[in-house]
């Protein structure tokens, strides 16, 4: 307990330096700014803004990226409430009741409760992260290659189970991602693999290229298909503050949302989207009058908003302690860390405590900033929504292109990003989900390395994955999950959750 306190003091010492506070503020502001724009979720936002962190020292860069992430998350809920356009998938449920509240002239309280719920969830989950980090890290140190491999398989299975639509296609996407990650030099022998003698491919395909192409360019191509409809802002923003009754009604929802979100965030493959859905469904179940939901119930805003923020935060746990990204956004963070020369994993906490605890402390500061900056700035965000898409998308295209070019000064990379854009567009048209592919792509090298090491240690005997107890347990869990996902009964339930 004392140790935890000392660690947090160390963290706040780092995060509260004026420079880092400023970076956190800029990150949260820019993240919200981009997150408010329709069609740009946290993934695209982080991928697009990644280059502006290149010149910073690692701690500052990660603090800023975390700020961008929370900002993007929060920006999404603002648009859900005001104009019924979810900025990203984790705020889809917020549109149900949030926008109804806005139509009833209660946009102010809805926005405020979203901010308060997010802040509360942020506070709790920051403590959860700090408390769980140390014990989990010591567990991670017991892990050998076989355990790591099984854990990653479990994470990928979670991603499959939680993906929308066909299980078969989700697995195919993960395998495709793994295969793509193998382009380039072999880790052990240095042999060039599937690079077709192209110099640019010999180092492998950059993950930023894949992420920006699939989530940035492809998304624009999709958006351009639809007739653009100008966002209609229903809100008359009068009083921002919620009434006492609102606060009382939503306090339970915030608590439950935070709890659910914290748990679902830690699970590999989970994350903000599923947490928001689960919290909303749960809230509807426990409500005395479920019929109010969908008609402007404040609990319907409070619960998913708290849950997605809590999950957004706790999903850092597997990343920071085990070095395994539990979802696509965290996969992007891994890439960002690698660019700054940090290999995520248990050694970060012991070798770079100021980075580790500084980042955790900045999570809390980032949440505070969101409350402080967002409520007064709501008016500006609303005005931003009136910028027509025909002016917006060229800006996104050029930012992505410059961003990709700045990584390696390679024009080839820009064109490759374009190729992934077209591929991503095709994937969506054929109902393949790109997020599992990105997760497979990022986990690929680690997965292969651990598989090879485990096999070598076991002298080529693949039964090592089921005879070592921890590994066997993880594998069994993965098998059970996969079996459950294929069972028709659960499948229909799963679809139901997503349809809602």
């Amino acid at each position: 307990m004392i140790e935890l306190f000392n660690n947090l003091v160390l963290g706040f010492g780092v995060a509260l330096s004026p420079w880092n506070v400023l970076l956190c503020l800029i990150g949260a502001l820019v993240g919200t700014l981009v997150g408010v724009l329709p069609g740009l979720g946290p993934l695209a936002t982080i991928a697009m803004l990644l280059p502006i962190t290149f010149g910073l020292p690692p701690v500052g860069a990660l603090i800023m990226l975390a700020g961008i992430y929370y900002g993007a998350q929060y920006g999404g809920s603002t648009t859900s409430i005001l104009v019924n356009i979810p900025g990203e998938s984790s705020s889809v449920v917020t549109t149900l009741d949030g926008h109804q509240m806005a139509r009833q002239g209660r946009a102010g309280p809805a926005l405020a409760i979203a901010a308060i719920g997010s802040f509360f969830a942020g506070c709790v989950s920051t403590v959860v992260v700090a408390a769980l980090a140390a014990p989990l890290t010591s567990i991670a140190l017991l892990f050998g290659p076989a355990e790591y491999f099984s854990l990653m398989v479990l994470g990928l299975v979670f991603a499959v189970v939680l993906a929308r639509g066909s299980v078969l296609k989700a697995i195919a996407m993960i395998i495709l991602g793994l295969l793509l990650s193998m382009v380039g030099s072999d880790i052990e022998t240095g042999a060039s693999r599937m690079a077709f003698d192209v110099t640019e491919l010999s180092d492998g395909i950059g993950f930023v290229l894949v992420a920006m192409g699939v989530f940035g360019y492809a998304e624009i191509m999709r958006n351009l298909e639809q007739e653009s409809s100008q966002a209609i802002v229903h809100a008359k923003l009068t009083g921002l503050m919620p009434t006492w009754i609102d606060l009382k009604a939503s306090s339970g929802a915030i608590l439950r949302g935070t709890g659910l979100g914290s748990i679902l965030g830690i699970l590999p493959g989970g994350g903000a989207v599923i947490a928001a859905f689960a919290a909303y469904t749960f809230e509807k179940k426990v409500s005395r009058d479920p019929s109010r939901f969908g008609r402007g119930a404040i609990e319907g805003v409070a619960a998913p908003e708290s849950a997605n923020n809590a999950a957004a935060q706790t999903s850092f746990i597997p990343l920071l302690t085990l070095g395994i990204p539990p979802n696509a956004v965290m996969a992007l963070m891994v890439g960002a860390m690698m660019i700054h020369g940090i290999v995520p994993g248990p050694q970060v906490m012991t070798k770079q405590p100021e980075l580790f605890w500084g980042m955790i402390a900045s999570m809390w500061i980032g949440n505070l900033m969101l409350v402080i900056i967002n409520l007064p700035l709501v008016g500006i965000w609303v005005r931003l929504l009136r910028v027509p898409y025909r002016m917006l998308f060229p800006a996104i295209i050029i930012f992505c292109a410059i961003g990709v070019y700045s990584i390696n000064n390679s024009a080839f990379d820009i064109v490759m990003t374009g190729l992934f854009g077209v591929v991503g567009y095709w994937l969506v048209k054929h109902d393949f989900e790109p997020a599992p592919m990105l997760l497979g792509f990022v986990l690929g090298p680690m997965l292969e390395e651990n598989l090879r090491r485990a096999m070598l240690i076991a002298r080529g005997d693949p039964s090592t994955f089921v005879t070592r107890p921890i590994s066997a347990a993880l594998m069994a869990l993965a098998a059970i999950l996969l079996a459950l996902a294929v069972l028709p009964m659960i499948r229909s339930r799963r679809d139901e959750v997503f349809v809602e």
Partner: protein
Amino acid sequence: MSQEVHASSGAPQRGLKISNPREFYGGLALVLLGFLALWASRDLAGMHGISFGPGTAPRMFASILIVLGVAIMAVGCLTEGVAVERYEISAPTLIILAYMFAASGRTTLILIVAAALLVGGVILAILGMMGPRRTLVRGPLFITLSIIVFAATIRPFGLVPASYLAIVAAAAATPEVRWIETLIWSAVLTAFCVLLFVYGINLPFQLWPTNLSWETLLSLR
């Protein structure tokens, strides 16, 4: 990787009718990709003794991908499904591949292939823009062109001309484009990019053309 999909728009009328084309052609593309990966890793050493060689994992995952692709195709044959949401990406794909071949090509053969791909892409693009599906052609095509323009001009001409041209090309991706507005807006955005990236975060970009030569123009890298 998408060409085979376009055949689908005409195919269902005659002979075999595929009941769920979205799944069937999606699976088919994965199978082809799997075979491409198998072919690309054909020279890599496999297992030796108990340890994996560089080629083991790629071949393993490529094989799994082929099996999954076949399974998805089977689902496509056995279930009823919605038609593929319409799209048109053949021209952009060809143009991008042409660029990649040209940029990496050292042999004459590859350069000829690149030229052929480019000609094919341009013809498809022109036909597409004149055809009935021009709204579907437009978005991906001009976004691709914008990316290509930026990639080809950034090194020889510098950031200012490259971004300006790329933004104008991108703006053409929507039928709602207003040209005068676009020309002004592109200048504003270019200025913003220069301020942000060059003066704001000190990225080492050259702004204007310097020592232009055929070599820099044609290197495409």
